[in-house]
Structures are given as structure tokens and as C-alpha cells.
């Protein structure tokens, strides 16, 4: 505006009404823009409010209630939570879930990183390997669980047969309480390797080649290059993989439901929080206690995530 006026334009006199008009027009334009903004987020936000935010509040409330049958919720305060402390089955379930997570996350992350690094080298037929490793990711977990259950069958399973060739007496992978959790870890890791590998591979490919070339000139060995360049450079992606694997491990359900099942003697030693949540909420139909278990699960996930976020500063390098 100042420029216009300083120029001593003929329109000088009419500047002020025009400006007003223009700002009104601008304001109108803004209002229309806002309206579009709200209109375009409306379906998603309304949906989230109805399907997620309201349910979240409801779950919190239900966890403080005793539910009998449909609808009739009786407020009982923190009784469900107090009950938890004396519920041996639940405490064992927490241990199972944590144990499964602590075993499977490091194995899954390390193996998928090794695979990704190997696939990031200059070798032929990479895409074939990549495809083969990825197949479990697109397969129905129910089918995966069944075939592994069959492979791990005590009497007729292929795995115990192969072990018997080496004169090893294979365990009862599925129903022996000592082995069942370990078997779940094997299948869980096997199922997620491809997914993690693909994400890590994408991260590895973003590392500039010049870094390695410079290191080679300095005479760095492969192992040094791996720890001094690869790991720090890929650490943000690695962190993402750690977090997602952690989350899905803490929420394990499908494999237990399909491989172990309700009648298995090993169930108390492997059942996870989500499995117990499912049983209480939809089998025993104690939705109040089920809700409390869900809240507990959320708190455990938060604790693990917070620990990761704290550790993150020590090893994750953002540019």
C-alpha cells in the first residue's frame, strides 16, 4: 500500500475504500478457505470422535464398572484394578507378554538388520530374496499359525523328525509349558522379518555411498564401517522398526489364539494380555475387567515406549 501511495498515483484518493473492500474480500476468501478446511476434515474427525475418542472414554469408564449382560453397568470404583493385584493369572499373563516381547524384539530386529545389510550389498538376484522373505507378511496369520503348529507337532511334525536325524529328541513345542513361549517367539520373528527388512533396506539405501568411500580411503574394515557408519546412519529407521515390533509384540494375539488355543495345557504359560482381554470381554463376558486389562495393556505399552524414547537419545542420530 505504501508503495502505491508514495508513487502519487491517480487513485490515491480512492485507496482507502478500495483497501477496505479488498480486505473484506480477503476476509471472505479466508472464511471460505476455513470452511473448506473444516469440511474436508469433518468426516475423519467425526468418525474418530465416534469410533475412537468416545470409545476410549467409555473403556476408561467401563474399567470402573461391573457389567452383567448387555447395557447394565454398575459403578464399582477401582475394584477391577484392585482385583488385578490378587489375580495370579493376570500377573502371569503380564510376565508372559513382557517375556515374549523381550525375547522376540531383539531377535527380530537384529536378524532383519543383518538381512537388510546383506541385501544392500552388491550381489545378484537381490529381488528374489526380497520377495521370498516378504511372503509371510502378506499371508493370513491363521494359516501361518496352523502350518507352524503342524511343523512343530510332537509326533508327526517335520521339525522333530529333522531333529531326530541328528539324534535329538525334539520337545513338545506347542504343549510343553517350557517350550510354548519359545515356539511363539520363533513364529513371531519369522512372520515379521520381511516387513522389518524392507523398511530397514529403504533406510540403508538412503546412506550416501561417499561415506563408505571415505572410510575405505582411511582403511576402515567392514566391521568398523558397519558400527561407525551404517548403524548411526540407519538409526532413525532402526528406531522406528524397534518401536513397531515392540508394539506388535506386546499386542500378540493371533498366534496364541490359533497355535495354542483354549484347551492347551501350556496356555497359562503363554497367554498374552490381549488374549486374556479377549477371553474376559467376549468369552467370560466380564467387560468391566476386560476394559481394565485393556487399560493396563496401554500403560505397559506406554512404559516400554517411554523407555525407548529415553534410550533413543543415546543411540539414535537425527541429522
Amino acid at each position, binding site marked *: 500500500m505504501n508503495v502505491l501511495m508514495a508513487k502519487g498515483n491517480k487513485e490515491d484518493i480512492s485507496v482507502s475504500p478500495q483497501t477496505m473492500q479488498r480486505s473484506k474480500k480477503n476476509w471472505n476468501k479466508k472464511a471460505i478457505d476455513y470452511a*473448506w478446511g473444516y469440511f474436508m476434515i469433518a468426516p475423519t474427525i467425526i468418525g*474418530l470422535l465416534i469410533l*475412537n475418542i468416545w470409545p476410549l472414554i*467409555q473403556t476408561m469408564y467401563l474399567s470402573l464398572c461391573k457389567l452383567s449382560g448387555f447395557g447394565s453397568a454398575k459403578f464399582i470404583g477401582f475394584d477391577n484394578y484392585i482385583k488385578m493385584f490378587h489375580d495370579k493369572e493376570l500377573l502371569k499373563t503380564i510376565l508372559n507378554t513382557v517375556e515374549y516381547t523381550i525375547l522376540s524384539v531383539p531377535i527380530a530386529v537384529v536378524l532383519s538388520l543383518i538381512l537388510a545389510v546383506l541385501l544392500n550389498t552388491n550381489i545378484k538376484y537381490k529381488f528374489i530374496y526380497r520377495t521370498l522373505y516378504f*511372503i509371510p507378511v502378506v499371508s*493370513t496369520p491363521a494359516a501361518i499359525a496352523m*502350518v507352524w503348529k503342524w511343523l512343530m507337532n510332537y509326533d508327526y511334525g517335520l521339525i522333530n523328525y529333522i531333529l531326530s536325524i541328528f539324534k535329538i529328541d525334539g520337545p513338545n513345542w506347542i504343549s510343553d509349558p517350557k517350550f510354548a513361549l519359545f515356539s511363539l517367539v520363533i513364529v513371531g520373528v519369522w512372520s515379521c522379518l520381511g516387513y522389518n527388512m524392507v523398511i530397514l533396506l529403504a533406510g540403508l539405501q538412503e546412506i550416501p555411498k561417499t561415506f563408505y568411500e571415505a572410510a575405505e580411503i582411511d582403511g576402515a574394515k567392514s566391521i568398523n564401517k558397519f558400527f561407525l557408519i551404517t548403524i548411526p546412519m540407519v538409526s532413525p529407521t532402526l528406531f522406528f522398526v524397534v518401536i513397531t515390533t515392540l508394539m506388535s509384540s506386546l499386542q500378540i494375539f493371533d498366534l496364541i489364539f490359533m497355535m495354542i488355543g483354549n484347551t492347551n495345557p501350556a496356555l497359562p504359560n503363554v497367554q498374552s494380555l*490381549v488374549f486374556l482381554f*479377549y477371553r474376559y470381554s467376549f468369552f467370560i463376558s466380564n467387560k468391566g475387567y476386560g476394559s481394565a486389562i485393556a*487399560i493396563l495393556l496401554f500403560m505397559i505399552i506406554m512404559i516400554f515406549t517411554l523407555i525407548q524414547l529415553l534410550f533413543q537419545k543415546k543411540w539414535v542420530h537425527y541429522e
Partner: protein
Amino acid sequence: MKNSDISEKITIHTILIVGSFIMVLPFIWMFLTSIKSLAVSMQIPPVIFPKEIIWKNYVDVWNKLPFSQFYINTILLVLFRVLFAITLCSMAAYSFARIKFPGRDLIFMIVLIQLMIPSQLFIIPQYLIVVKLAWLNTIKALVLPGIVNAFGTFLLRQFFLSLPAELEEAGILDGCNRWQLYWKIMMPLAKSGLVALSIFTAIYAWKDLLWPLVVNMSIEKMPLSAGLANLQGQYTTNYPQLMAGSIFAITPMIILFFFFQKQFIQGIATTGSKN
């Protein structure tokens, strides 16, 4: 090429081949078991290749359970979830990324909250909603929790944020309104993001087991995942039949994957890097 290079490559290939074998073996065993008779499948030592190939297991399983219905239900579930994800997420994502309306960041918190909270916390109330609407045992019930997709909104928002502003400015000069900017200019540019989201949503819907188990007890309305669980519940020990059912359940997605490998791999890689 140096000798050490060659030996290094042989080592890498050996490790990768052994790994591939472990990844593929369960699927091969699944197939080999599915073409055996029950008696042959339980022989010791195990018969690797049966002398007599039996396709009857497939017929039996198909007749025992409504597999054609499972396919239809699964396809509908995946299709609707993907459609909702593409339309609603992209709309919201565009708005969050490109329009500066008051309260935007605060409202975006709702999306972030959903992203951070495990889905089990929503299931009981969502189930109660389904009961109240009298939607139990319907396709609508299967689709319901996927109508809105916080992950998709987040992913596409990142995508729209990464596109240069100039393209949109050109559109504004041409007198496009917001809808046209979104639909005609931004959407075509976001194709790779939309493909990634579609694939991610499809795999997720395809594999989901807990929600279908909760809302659809009637076998006619189950998707493949829950139907297979049902099969196991009924015929616990007839592995040739269970394996034939599993082959039915995994084949469509694996075929799809073989055809669209590049999109699958890139899509999954994108979902990782955009976070």
C-alpha cells in the same frame, strides 16, 4: 575381481539362501501336506513327496465351509476399507497439510491420540455400537472400525507436506477452489502415497482376526481369517484338510503380491520412512 570378494559373495548368498529356505519351507510343507491323504501325512518318517497326489482335501474343505462366501466377505471388507482410506484420509490429510484454519493443530491431536493408543482400547465400545445398530454378523460391522484411519491421515499428511507449494499456487492463479486444488492437482501427485496406503490398509484388513471374531460369529459372514480359525476349531487334527484351507486363504494375497511386488515393497518402505 579379487578372491576375497568372491568368497564374500558366496558367503552372503549362502546365508541368504538358507534364510530363504527357512522362510519358504512352511509354505512348501503346507502345500505338500494338502495333497496327501490323512494316513500318508501321519507316516513316520514323513513322506516328503506323496506317491499319490490327492486333490480331494481341497474339495472336502470347500464343501465343509462356505469358502466362496469367505472370499466375497474378505474382498468386500478389503475394498471398503481401502476406499474409505483413500477418500476420507486424503481429504483430511490435504486439509491438515495445506489449509491454515484455526484450531488445526489442536484438532490434529485427535488423530495423534488414535495413532498412539492400541486398538484393544476401542474394541468393547465399538462392539457395543455394533450391537446397538443391530449390525452383528454383517459386512458393515467388519468394515466399521476402518472407516476412519488415523494412520492413513497421518501418512498422507506427511506426503502432502512434502509436495512443493508452487504447484498449488499455479492452481490458485487459475481460479481453482480448494476442492479442485485437492482433487485435480494434489491427488494425482500423491499417487505413490495413495498406493502405499491402499496396500497397507489391504494387508491389515486381510490379516485382521480379533475384530472379525468379535462381531461376526455367523459363519456366512466371516472373512477368510476368521473362517480359517473356525475350520481349525472344527477339524483340529485333519492336517491335510487344514492345509488345503490355508492354501485357499493365503493364495489370493500372495498372487496379488507377486503381480504388484514393486508397489508392495515400496509401499511398505514408504510407511516406514514417512514416520
